[in-house]
């Protein structure tokens, strides 16, 4: 009942504002839950209810960002000691902290864009993959800085999320859509590759739309820099060793996971790019090398 309402709330958030990252929508939902919840008696019970809600939201949208954002939110509000003996006081403190966290991360996309757009030089040719709102923000701020550059976007099947091309045309940036298979062909022409990420793992690698790994391998072979832009709430405590090691619940869309029994028939929607292929990561914590990601994760989670 309350959970159904919350899932609806989450879906409306995403529908109303397509620009909002799914993790932010999830965190707003969790804050709503905190405000509405009447049944919690103890702090431990409250935490358990929050974890339950995160699981429910993961079933609605199986991206890595929802899982990582939810876990970070939980840690942020309950990490320091809550000394008030009265539960409603504690809840108020938690809600305040939650609002603070939300405000911080709502600004993270602009922070990332500010860091990254200086790496785009005048006359650059950029290759990007699929549709990422962070990359869009970066290109927007580079265009606002009066830089001239051209963008190649991959078609990114199976769900051809190449709506990036329309948005870039609206910004008057010359854009070309290329086939996923033409990445190797186009690589010699481009100067740099910028992709977003759905999740950043402990090793410094990323989980992103399928096709990113190929892009990274090609750019390494051509010695082109491969940049990743991601907000810090996408850092997740996974450590995949290879493609098979990524948990199933992230590989497929939420509806597929519920509907289909034998997942071996389904095509995975994400892949894992190891840190050796990534040049730099742009996050709101700063510009990091892949080996520094583990350092930041230890700071965030310990």
């Amino acid at each position, binding site marked *: 009942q309350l959970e159904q309402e919350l899932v609806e709330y989450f879906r409306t958030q995403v529908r109303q504002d397509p620009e909002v990252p799914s993790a932010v929508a999830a965190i707003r939902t969790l804050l709503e839950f905190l405000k509405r919840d009447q049944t919690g008696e103890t702090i431990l019970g409250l935490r358990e209810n929050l974890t339950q809600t995160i699981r429910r939201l993961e079933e609605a949208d199986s991206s890595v960002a929802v899982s990582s954002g939810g876990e970070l939110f939980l840690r942020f509000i309950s990490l320091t000691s809550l000394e008030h003996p009265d539960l409603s006081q504690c809840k108020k403190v938690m809600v305040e902290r939650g609002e603070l966290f939300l405000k911080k991360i709502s600004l993270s996309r602009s922070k990332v864009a500010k860091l990254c757009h200086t790496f785009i030089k005048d006359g650059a040719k950029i290759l990007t993959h699929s549709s990422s709102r962070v990359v869009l923000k970066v290109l927007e701020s580079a265009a606002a800085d009066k830089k001239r550059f051209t963008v190649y976007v991959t078609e990114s099947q199976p769900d051809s999320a190449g709506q990036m091309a329309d948005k870039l045309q609206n910004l008057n940036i010359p854009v070309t859509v290329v086939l996923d298979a033409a990445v190797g062909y186009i690589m010699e022409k481009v100067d740099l590759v910028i992709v977003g990420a759905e999740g950043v793992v*402990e*090793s*410094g690698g990323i989980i992103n739309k399928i096709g990113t790994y190929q892009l990274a391998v090609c750019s390494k072979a051509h010695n082109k820099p491969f940049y990743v832009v991601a907000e810090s709430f996408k850092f997740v405590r996974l*450590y995949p*060793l*290879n493609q098979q090691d990524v948990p199933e619940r992230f590989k497929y869309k939420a509806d597929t996971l519920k509907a289909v029994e034998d997942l071996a028939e389904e095509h995975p929607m994400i892949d894992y790019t190891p840190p050796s292929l990534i040049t730099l990561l742009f996050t709101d914590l700063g510009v990091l090398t892949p*080996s520094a990601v*583990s*350092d930041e994760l230890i700071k965030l989670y*310990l």
Partner: protein
Amino acid sequence: SSILHIAAVVVSGTSVVVYMYTWCLSSSIHISAVVVSMFSTIICGFLFLLVVKRLPEHVQVDDPAVVKRLAKKLERQQIPLRSDYGYKVSLFSHLHQYSRKAPLTQQLSIPSTVIHPSIVRLGLQYSQGIVAGSNARSVALLHAFKQVIRDYTTPPNEELSRDLVNKLKPYISFLNQCRPLSASMGNAIKYIKKEISNIPSQCKEEEAKTKLLTCIDRYIEEKIVLAAKAISKYAIEKISDGDVILVYGCSSLVNNILCEAFEKSRKFRVIVVDSRPRLEGREALRRLVQRGISCTYVLISALSYILPEVSKVFLGAHALLANGYVMSRVGTSQIALVARTFNVPVLVCCETYKFCEKVQTDSFVSNELDDPDDLMVTRKGKTQLENWQDVSSLGLLNLVYDVTPPDFVDLVITDLGMIPCTSVPVVLRVKNLDQ
């Protein structure tokens, strides 16, 4: 080198005086600025010489001055000096090479008044190879120190916190002579020395002794036993059904992990890789087969033949260095290299008490040379290399450790979690903050 330090101080002092004189004489600010920078660099250079750490003595065996200094120190502590045996390969002539047939205890007088009997026994166990493996050696060392503390009585007019530390110094030199200390033993000794010096002076002797004994017990429990449980918990997540796991030699931690995973009903099989002259893989094989795990046994020369079948490689470590290099049994870096070319993930399992602040980029500078006679093998009544000492151009090299660069290691599993190899300095920094 103390003469060097005095000379440095004298020269820097005179340079300051000369600078002041010229500054007073010169009227132009331009000249004095140059003079200031020149002298400040000279002073900084000499100050740097004063604080830089010296190389440890056991890797400078070819320097006669260092050897003489070591002999004097051992004479003062009344510990016999162990002499090197046999011809040393020139690339490793800066390391000690002892023979197992000439243990240090033969030169000790019985009963020895300087060295506690449990330490003598421990030294003998180390030098004969009865206690081997970094965890086993550290635990045996801590138990021997517990016995030493139990038998200790503070002499009159002395404080326990200072006298006990001084008593431990000759024991540590003795153990070093029997077999060079490992990184884990070094960390354990540092911890004990810190605990002893932190004993408040008004504490009564019995109370202090019980406190120290509980400290040591807690160290063993936390850093070794519980750490092994935590590491198994993380490692089991990485073992999936149908895996073929390759292990090298006998690492107590890796064997523990595999046995726990088997108990949690994971379906996997193990390939044990072994190498001469220690043939430690046979011990690992025995332990795993006893639990019922299906194993294959190969020698390291068959590595590239067997690797296409392997899905993961689990390696133990002797120490993890501050630049992310893994120091382990000789042969480990070879396995990591070949596994990398076959794209097989390499996982290293290591407790955090084995992390050390040393930095090494090669296996030459700091290593251990084992008894060269171990390389002689007797087959069908004939012993090859029996008279190797008579051949003047022949040298036998029996290395014990090698270092693996972090690019070959995919994941390090510690009791703090799964970290990439490059994050070892972060863990060291977090540990230092805790202390």
